[in-house]
C-alpha cells in the first residue's frame, strides 16, 4: 500500500492559520468558562472554531456536519429567526409600554449602524478602497451596531457578506463588553448632576389586553411600512404573543427554554464552524472588530444626545443616561445605567426606565435591520 503519512495525520497538515484559529477558539472558550463572558454563546462558538480548524477533520468542509448546519440554518436564515421567537418569549415589554416615548431613544441609538456603515464604505469600495468592503459588506458591518446577534446574522446572511463570521463574533463579543464600552462615553457626555437626575416611577400597570395587542400592532405597523423587517419583527412578536396571550403557556415555556437552548447550541457551533483560518484571518477582520467598537460607541453617543434633548424638553424629568440604553444590548445596558445612576446618587434607581429604553432598542434594532435590507439593494 502506498499511503503518505501526511494524508491521515492531522498535525502534519497544520498551517499557521489553523494554529492561530485553534488558539482563538481556545481563548473564546476560556472567556466563556473561566471569565463567564457570554458563556452560552462563546463556549459553542469557541468549540465550533476548534472543530472547523482541525486539519483533515472535514467538519466544516462540504458534507461535514458544520457545513450542513451552515447550509440548513444560517444560509436559509432559519436559526436567527428561531432565536427571535425565543427572545420574544423571554422579553417583558411592560417597562417600554409604561414609557412608550423611549422608542425614540431606541430609534436614535440606531445611528451607530448607519454611521459605521458609512465609515466602512468610505474605507472600502466607496472611496478610499484600502479594504475589500463592498456596499453589502459595509451594511453588514454597520449592523454590528444593532447590538443584536440574530439581527447581525440575518442581515449579513441576506446581504451575502464575506465577513459574516467575523461580524457575528464581533456582535456577540461586544454585547458582553457593553459594561466596558458604555460607561466612559456616558460619563464623558453627562455631568454628575445629569447622572444623578431622579426619574419618577410610572404609576399603574399595563392591562393584559394592551400586552396582547402590542405584538400584533407592532407587526402590522412595522411590516406595512418596512416590509423587509417582517421576518425579524414577526418572529420576535410571535414569541412575545405566546408569552402574553396566557393560553399557550406550554408553547411559551418551550420557546423560552427548549427552543432557545437547542437553537443557541446549533447557532453557536455553526458560527464557530464558519471561522476557518483562511476565511477569518485577513486584515479586514481586524477592521470589522474595530468598526464594531465604533458602532457601539456611536449608538451610545446618539442615544445620550437624544436623551439630553428629551431631558431639556421634559423639564429635567428624564435622565439623559437612559438614552444609552436605546442600544439593544438587553439587559447589560440597563444595568450599566442603573449602576452609574447609583454611583452619582445612592437613591437614584433608573433600572426600569433604562429597561424601557432597552427593550425599545430591541424593536428599533430589528427595524433598522429591515431598513438596511430594504435600502441597500436599491443602491447596488
Amino acid at each position: 500500500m502506498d499511503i503518505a503519512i501526511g494524508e491521515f495525520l492531522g498535525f502534519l497538515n497544520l498551517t499557521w492559520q489553523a494554529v492561530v484559529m485553534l488558539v482563538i477558539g481556545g481563548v473564546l472558550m476560556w472567556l466563556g468558562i473561566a471569565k463567564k463572558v457570554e458563556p452560552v454563546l462563546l463556549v459553542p462558538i469557541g468549540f465550533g472554531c476548534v472543530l472547523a480548524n482541525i486539519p483533515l477533520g472535514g467538519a466544516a468542509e462540504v458534507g461535514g456536519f458544520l457545513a450542513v448546519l451552515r447550509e440548513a440554518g444560517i444560509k436559509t436564515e432559519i436559526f436567527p429567526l428561531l432565536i427571535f421567537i425565543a427572545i420574544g418569549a423571554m422579553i417583558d415589554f411592560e417597562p417600554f409600554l409604561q414609557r412608550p416615548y423611549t422608542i425614540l431613544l431606541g430609534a436614535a441609538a440606531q445611528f451607530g449602524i448607519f454611521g459605521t456603515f458609512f465609515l466602512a464604505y468610505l474605507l472600502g469600495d466607496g472611496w478610499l478602497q484600502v479594504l475589500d468592503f463592498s456596499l453589502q459588506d459595509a451594511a453588514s458591518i454597520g449592523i454590528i451596531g444593532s447590538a443584536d446577534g440574530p439581527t447581525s446574522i440575518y442581515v449579513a446572511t441576506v446581504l451575502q457578506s464575506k465577513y459574516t463570521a467575523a461580524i457575528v463574533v464581533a456582535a456577540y463579543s461586544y454585547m458582553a463588553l457593553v459594561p466596558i464600552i458604555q460607561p466612559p462615553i456616558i460619563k464623558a457626555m453627562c455631568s454628575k448632576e445629569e447622572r444623578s437626575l431622579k426619574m419618577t416611577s410610572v404609576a399603574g400597570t399595563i392591562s393584559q389586553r394592551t400586552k396582547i395587542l402590542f405584538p400584533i400592532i407592532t407587526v402590522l405597523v412595522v411590516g406595512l411600512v418596512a416590509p423587509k423587517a417582517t421576518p425579524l419583527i414577526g418572529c420576535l412578536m410571535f414569541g412575545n404573543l405566546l408569552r402574553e396571550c396566557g393560553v399557550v403557556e406550554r408553547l411559551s415555556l418551550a420557546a423560552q427554554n427548549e427552543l432557545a437552548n437547542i437553537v443557541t447550541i446549533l447557532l453557536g457551533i455553526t458560527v464557530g464552524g464558519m471561522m476557518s483560518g483562511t476565511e477569518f484571518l485577513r486584515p479586514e477582520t481586524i477592521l470589522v472588530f474595530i468598526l464594531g467598537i465604533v458602532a457601539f460607541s456611536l449608538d451610545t453617543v446618539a442615544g445620550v444626545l437624544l436623551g439630553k434633548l428629551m431631558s431639556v424638553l421634559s423639564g429635567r424629568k428624564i435622565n439623559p443616561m437612559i438614552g444609552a440604553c436605546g442600544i439593544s444590548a438587553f439587559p447589560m445596558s440597563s444595568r450599566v445605567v442603573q449602576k452609574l445612576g447609583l454611583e452619582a446618587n445612592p437613591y437614584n434607581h433608573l433600572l426600569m426606565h433604562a429597561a424601557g429604553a432597552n427593550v425599545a432598542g430591541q424593536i428599533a434594532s430589528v427595524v433598522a435591520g429591515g431598513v438596511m435590507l430594504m435600502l441597500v439593494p436599491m443602491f447596488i
Partner: protein
Amino acid sequence: MIFSLDSNTPIPTNALTPTTALLYYNNLARQERSRMLNALWIVLLGMAIIFAVLGILLLVMILLGKLVRPRDKQEKKDK
C-alpha cells in the same frame, strides 16, 4: 469601430491620450462621489424611515393606551 467599456474595467494608462485621460479620471472621480452620495442617502433615508416607523408605533401605542385603559377601569368598577 464602435466599442464599449465596462465602467469597472480599468483602462491601461498608456492607452490614453491626454484628453481621454482627463475624461477618464474625471469620470472615475464622479463615480466615487456618486457612490458616497448613495451611501449618504442610505444613512439619511435609513434614519428617517426608522424614526417614521417607530414614531407611528409610538402614536398607535399612545392611542391604544387611551382606548384600552378606560375599559380596565370600568372592569375594576364592575368587580
